């Protein structure tokens, strides 16, 4: 009763909604970098929110099923083949015992989410399956290891499931390797002069190759706040910190829970997925928004999951 890993690909991790409530022990959240694509993968398989999926970075994953189930791949544009036949992303497919599921390599975007009916089953560590390699927590074996050849990913058989697809207008398009991202000002923002803020919000940054699930490092105009260090303090998702070299680092799901660099604020959570889909060299610009604007944007975004998905397109398959 499993999907067997024939090839793990570049970097494939089991991720559920993330590990929360454990920061006071220094344990970070983990979870999907592109939460929107992750949610759609689960919804297309009729799973409950936060069911465990595989986050596939760049591609190369090959699985074989021992059961009847459904499967959906969302996010980065990675060619998907079932039994050597090319099939579409952003929809669910029927899978039968013996079927081979092969992922190619991303044509655009960096992270794809593979869901199966009922979600992948693994023993949670601190209430979560989310894999955090740096901490050695979560995943199939509970030790933070990425998927490897020979792993058997437990899941339950699904009979007679309906198949769904996502309307085109709701699918994310990652074909442009550039983005405008929104920032809620906060933390030590007062330590950044008006000139420094203007420079940050009017400059173009590029994504450094030294970017991972812990943080995205950017290269561009140097921003120097009036403080060169602070007492280490809690870091929230998307916080934008400036080490002494003035080059921003955006802290993501696997971030350290505390740190001592000055921060100008935090990226809007809705834009973290967009950032994580970019690859090295991508161009970025930032816009400041207020915390109240952020809240409206969150509510508006949430609407697409509740209303439009209630009218899914039933496929003929």
């Amino acid at each position, binding site marked *: 009763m499993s999907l067997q890993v024939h090839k793990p690909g570049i970097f494939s991790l089991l991720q559920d909604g993330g590990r929360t*409530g454990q920061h006071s022990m220094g344990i970070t959240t983990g979870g999907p970098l592109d939460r929107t694509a992750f949610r759609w993968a689960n919804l297309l398989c009729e799973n409950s929110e936060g069911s465990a999926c595989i986050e596939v970075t760049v591609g190369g994953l090959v699985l074989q099923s021992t059961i009847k189930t459904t499967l959906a791949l969302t996010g980065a544009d990675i060619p998907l083949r079932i039994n050597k036949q090319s099939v579409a992303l952003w929809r669910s497919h029927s899978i039968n015992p013996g079927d081979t599921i092969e992922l190619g390599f991303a044509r655009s975007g960096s992270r794809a989410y593979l869901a199966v009916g009922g979600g992948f089953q693994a023993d949670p560590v601190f209430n979560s399956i989310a894999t955090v390699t740096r901490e050695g927590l979560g995943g199939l074996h509970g030790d933070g290891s990425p998927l490897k050849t020979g792993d058997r990913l437990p899941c339950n058989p699904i009979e007679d499931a309906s198949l769904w697809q996502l309307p085109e207008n709701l699918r994310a398009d990652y074909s442009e390797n550039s983005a405008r991202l929104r920032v809620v000002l906060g933390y030590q923002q007062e330590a950044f002069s008006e000139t420094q803020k203007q420079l940050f919000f009017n400059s173009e940054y590029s994504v450094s190759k030294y970017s991972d699930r812990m943080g995205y490092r950017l290269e561009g105009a140097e921003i120097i706040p009036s403080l060169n260090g602070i007492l280490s303090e*809690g870091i929230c998702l998307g916080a934008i910190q400036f080490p002494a070299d003035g080059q921003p680092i955006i802290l993501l799901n696997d971030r350290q829970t505390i740190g001592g660099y000055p921060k100008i604020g935090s990226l809007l959570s809705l834009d973290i997925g967009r950032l994580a889909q970019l690859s090295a060299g991508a161009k970025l610009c930032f816009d400041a928004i207020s915390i109240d604007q952020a809240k409206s944007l969150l509510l508006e975004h949430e609407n697409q999951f509740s209303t439009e998905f209630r009218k899914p397109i039933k496929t003929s398959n």
Partner: protein
Amino acid sequence: MSNSQTVSIAGENALIIYFANKPSAATSAEIATTAKKLTTFLGATLIDLVPSYASLLVIFDPFKTDHQSVRRAIWTALKTTNKTPATQHTDSGSLVSLPVYYSSESGPDLQTVADRAELSAEEVIAIHQQTEYHVYAIGFAPGFAYLGEVDKRIATPRLATPRKQVPRGAVAIADRQTAVYPAQSPGGWNLIGLCPQLMFDPTSTPTMPVKVGDRVSFKAIDKGTFEAMGGAL
């Protein structure tokens, strides 16, 4: 007790409370008390709390509450905390004693720390045990507790080149901070001994023997006791 706290936005669903400009035992206790109150006040709208040296990050569910309501809860918590005399804050933290096998074989930097301080290794060991440390923050890795403050005489800067592997249980000094490495990891602190007690064990309850706001003292044990307690060199 100071009334100089400020509350700032950290992100779309996070506020951060700044208690003071520098860490102190009183501030740590105040943070621990505030964290406890907010856990009750915010209930299911609270996602996580990150206590640190002189601040508390409050992460909330933006679909269940908003920053204005969380701010009000924070000020209510702070007002009642401020009314409590500093001496009574210590009820939120306990005193934890940790055994340490201090020696050059278990602490390869013990002699370096002693030489730098112009003291003997025995004196360094004695001074390290004399202080009751405060747990100022937990971070860097799961279970890594930053303890302060180390006696000035044995304060030692980090290694110029961090080690690729520091063993689990290593008792270490960096400037005026000390810590016990909860797991094998890279690290640049000066190693002076080994603690046989696990600082982070996902399979036990509680997972950690200490939390922010607690106090820690170290007690020297000999090699035999260290090994009897499950320690290994």
